[in-house]
């Protein structure tokens, strides 16, 4: 133990900060700081609890249940449980990978992220307080994370927390752990599988139904853990038969397949494409691993005669364990249809079985895949004509899509266009079919109605690049912290979009054009690779992949989100020289006050997304979510009118300073793309902006507000500290408004603001809300 510490000290000169391997208590004070300002908001879905046998209990109007818990605290507990499940998912994934890779490559396999990354694993450094140099070192972080999960989940047991604030603190804690776990997973797979290492210029990969060569056997992967599908590539490469097969997939599994194959694997689409792909009849074999996979995958594949290989112990799907069977036996069982699927948690065997099965199935139909949602038009119209407009489908559809109107219009006019339009918005969840008293195959009707567009869809996604380079950080650190780069927009998460998928591109294009830094990952990254403009190009094809103003950097799959948080941390370290090691609160405080980064999830749906967002929140990064995000039940929303809550300690002037409400929310759900755009620009403002930076940020904020909201925003004056903050083109106009509408005093000769702002701008302004940080740099206790 001591030997180890000394060895580490030699290796890593950085001094240990105050909170290495923090438990629940260590960062509670930081959380309470955030929660004081960004008050939790609860929007209950259900107003009762039935988690213990004294219940069910009516908690409506914030009543207390049998255990004494009230509605708010019960919701905060549920959020904590969700974040635990989210973290456990990335953790289960990371642990699988790590154990497997260590077994294969050894504990001492080095972590080398290429010459441009010297500050590797910034989250692990900051949170855990270690600098991992080998796969074995990652285990130390892993074990700490597992320990914390048990502790936090413990707190969700009946009869623990009394305060919703403490549950929020725990949710933040386990979500910070979640970021550590994502980092472990992605670093492990990058170094072991030689995925792109912080490379801005990664190849483009094909996306969409249209790019799959249907004259080859088609192997389709779905899920999140490349560990199980990579051996398919290895095996085919070894056999020299890569070109004889199509390997395509959905969601993060294929995301990472494109990273290990240099863009060779093809992307069908995001998670919402599962039923589209299966019911199209294109796959010859399906490989599922874990997370976000349809829970009726086996049923769905069986109905289409597609053999299924389930690989992860997180989703064995009730299938027989074929681990010990010879390859021939497995292939035979699947090809003959003796078994609809097998559970095969042995990656190497999956690599052999999948191609053999695909080939045999392909031979059966000879590439003549007749099935395209319906065998013929008659079948389609038979289904459409069954509809009585009973509305059951509409009242169960997550988006209340007007299927009734699409059907009625088609019945009356033989025109499928209204139904086709639904395809652009439909997430193919299939609930409509469950609710339909006539058992209409509604999903198939919708897909068939838009068949040509869907089936010929083609696009390009830039392969996941992995981490951000230290050099990139060096270039953009100062302009971000000073504000000249108006912000970093990180579009991450799932595909439960409130609107047609193209709205995602519309939102982000605004920011790319305005030379914000845009980063993306997960299903958002995939969707961006599927939306083409009139020239047939995706946003990737029009923008560089750098982490730089005007760039669009795809970091990779869900677990690659860690590189986005990591980039914020690296700005504090590489640009501002703040020490990372076990120094979480200082870094988060730095990010909150200085780094104009905003997370954006247009279609978040899962507990993983909840944990990712909450982890960003604890780090001081606000997150904007689409309207479905309101169903996470909890938001963090500050109140501009509570002036006593908006303050910082200024280390320079040794005083407590009132500040503008920036950012004024850590988690907010918007309703429309217009609103998303304005909020994203608005939440990039930071107290530490220089005059030039603030001027640029306000320029965008004001322009976007005028463009999308029809006028200047209500609160723009709050962000003006001096005339130098004002957008140049509008300066006079704005000064007049400040005088006439807000009663500010203006010296019109000098065009100077004399009175009005919340505070004056000071070039040496050095804000913090953490007493210990103040003390560290000011050398004295903070002022009261």
């Amino acid at each position: 133990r001591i030997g180890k510490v000394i060895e580490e000290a030699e290796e890593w000169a950085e001094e240990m900060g105050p909170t290495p391997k923090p438990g629940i208590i260590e960062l509670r004070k930081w959380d309470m700081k955030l929660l004081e300002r960004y008050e939790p908001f609860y929007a209950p879905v259900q107003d009762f609890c039935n988690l213990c046998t004294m219940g069910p209990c009516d908690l409506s109007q914030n009543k207390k249940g049998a255990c004494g818990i009230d509605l708010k605290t019960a919701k905060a507990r549920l959020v904590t449980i969700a974040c635990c499940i989210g973290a456990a998912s990335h953790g289960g994934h990371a642990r699988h990978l790590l154990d497997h890779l260590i077994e294969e490559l050894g504990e001492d396999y080095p972590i080398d992220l290429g010459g441009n990354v010297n500050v590797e694993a910034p989250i692990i450094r900051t949170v855990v307080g270690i600098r991992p140099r080998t796969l074995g070192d990652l285990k130390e972080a892993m074990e700490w994370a597992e320990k914390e999960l048990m502790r936090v989940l413990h707190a969700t047991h009946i009869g623990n927390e009394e305060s919703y604030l403490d549950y929020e603190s725990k949710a933040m804690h386990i979500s910070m752990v979640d970021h550590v776990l994502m980092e472990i997973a992605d670093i492990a797979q990058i170094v072991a599988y030689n995925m792109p290492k912080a490379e801005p210029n990664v190849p483009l990969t094909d996306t969409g139904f249209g790019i799959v060569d249907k004259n080859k056997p088609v192997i389709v992967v779905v899920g999140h853990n490349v560990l199980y599908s990579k051996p398919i590539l290895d095996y085919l490469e070894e056999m020299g038969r890569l070109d004889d097969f199509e390997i395509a997939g959905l969601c993060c599994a294929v995301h990472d397949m494109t990273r290990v194959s240099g863009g060779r694997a093809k992307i069908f689409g995001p998670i919402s494409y599962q039923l589209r792909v299966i019911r199209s009849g294109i796959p010859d074999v399906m490989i599922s691993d874990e997370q976000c996979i349809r829970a009726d995958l086996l049923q769905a594949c069986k109905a289409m005669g597609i053999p299924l290989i389930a690989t992860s112990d997180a989703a064995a799907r009730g299938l027989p364990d074929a681990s010990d069977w010879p390859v021939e036996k497995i292939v035979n069982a699947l090809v003959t249809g003796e078994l609809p699927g097998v559970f095969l948690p042995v990656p190497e065997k999956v690599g052999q079985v999948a191609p053999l099965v695909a080939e045999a199935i392909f031979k059966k139909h000879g590439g003549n895949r007749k099935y395209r949602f319906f065998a013929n038009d008659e079948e389609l119209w038979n289904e459409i004509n069954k509809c009585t407009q009973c509305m059951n489908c509409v009242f169960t559809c997550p988006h209340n899509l007007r299927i009734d109107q699409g059907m009625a219009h088609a019945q009356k006019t033989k025109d499928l266009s209204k139904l086709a339009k639904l395809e652009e918005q439909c997430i193919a969840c299939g609930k409509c079919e469950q609710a339909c008293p006539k058992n209409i195959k509604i999903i198939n009707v919708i897909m068939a109605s838009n068949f040509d567009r869907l089936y010929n869809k083609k696009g390009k996604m830039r392969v996941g690049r992995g981490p951000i380079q230290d050099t990139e950080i060096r270039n953009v650190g100062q302009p971000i912290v000073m504000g000249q780069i108006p912000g970093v927009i990180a579009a991450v998460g799932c595909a439960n979009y409130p609107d047609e998928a193209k709205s995602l591109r519309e939102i982000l294009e605004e920011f790319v054009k305005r030379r914000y830094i845009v980063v993306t990952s997960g299903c958002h990254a995939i969707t961006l690779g599927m939306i083409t403009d009139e020239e047939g190009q995706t946003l990737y094809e029009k923008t560089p992949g750098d982490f730089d103003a005007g760039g669009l950097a795809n970091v990779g799959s869900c677990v690659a989100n860690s590189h986005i948080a990591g980039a914020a941390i690296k700005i504090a370290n590489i640009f501002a020289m703040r020490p990372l090691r076990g120094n979480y609160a200082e870094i988060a405080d730095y990010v909150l006050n200085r780094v104009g980064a905003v997370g954006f999830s247009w279609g978040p749906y899962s507990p993983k997304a909840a944990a990712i967002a909450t982890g960003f929140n604890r780090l001081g990064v606000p997150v904007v979510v689409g309207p479905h995000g309101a169903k996470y039940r909890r938001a963090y929303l500050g109140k501009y009118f509570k002036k006593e809550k908006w303050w910082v300690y200024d280390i320079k002037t040794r005083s407590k300073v009132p500040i503008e409400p920036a950012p004024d929310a850590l988690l907010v759900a918007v309703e429309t793309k217009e609103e998303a755009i304005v909020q994203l620009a608005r939440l990039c403002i930071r107290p530490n902006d220089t005059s030039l930076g603030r001027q640029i940020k306000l320029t965008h904020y004001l322009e976007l507000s005028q463009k999308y909201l029809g006028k200047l925003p209500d609160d723009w004056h709050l962000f003006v500290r001096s005339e130098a903050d004002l957008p140049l083109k509008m300066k006079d106009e704005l000064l007049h408004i400040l005088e006439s509408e807000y009663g500010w005093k203006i010296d019109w000769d000098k065009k100077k603001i004399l009175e009005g702002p919340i505070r004056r701008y000071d070039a040496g302004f050095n804000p913090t809300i953490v007493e210990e940080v103040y003390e560290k740099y000011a050398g004295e206790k903070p002022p009261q």
Partner: protein
Amino acid sequence: MAVKKEDKYPVARRYQIADVQVSREATAVKPQVVVNLIKKAKHPVLITGGQLLKDEKLVEIAVKFYEKGIPIIATGGSSKPLIEKGVNPQSVVFTLHQVTQFLLDEEWKGFDGKGNYDLVLFMGFLPYYLSRMLSALKHFSKITTVALEEFYQPHAKFSFTNLTANKDMYYSMLEEIVNNL
């Protein structure tokens, strides 16, 4: 004055069958009830949502509300068409999420400084997004909420019934309100 069977109004089917709660569901109301509520209110407000961008008729109705002296909080980008038609919303930049958080704070003085609102009308929102906000207000505030939507909103205090089968009826109910203010 709730909607009764004999009035031949459509049944109040929830916008989402699975959005059930223990606490009372919204009373499905006729336009005249809404008129009375507004007239009795000390500090009413209409909050408009992003669906106004897709439905000009709702913009028209909102303008009439405004002309009858009901202040408007415009969210989701609905301010743009409203401003074009001469409305001066009390707020344009805050999301419904934020506005709801403000409404939950008894100390809030409203955007007009006159104190928190006692009657809040909602029009033009995505049903599932609005539903969560109504739920928050139902459980954590005493504000009277009224959903003037095509879909029946179970967590409002008062809501139009389910009018999805008859958009004309929806519009005419809205008309009836603004005409009687």
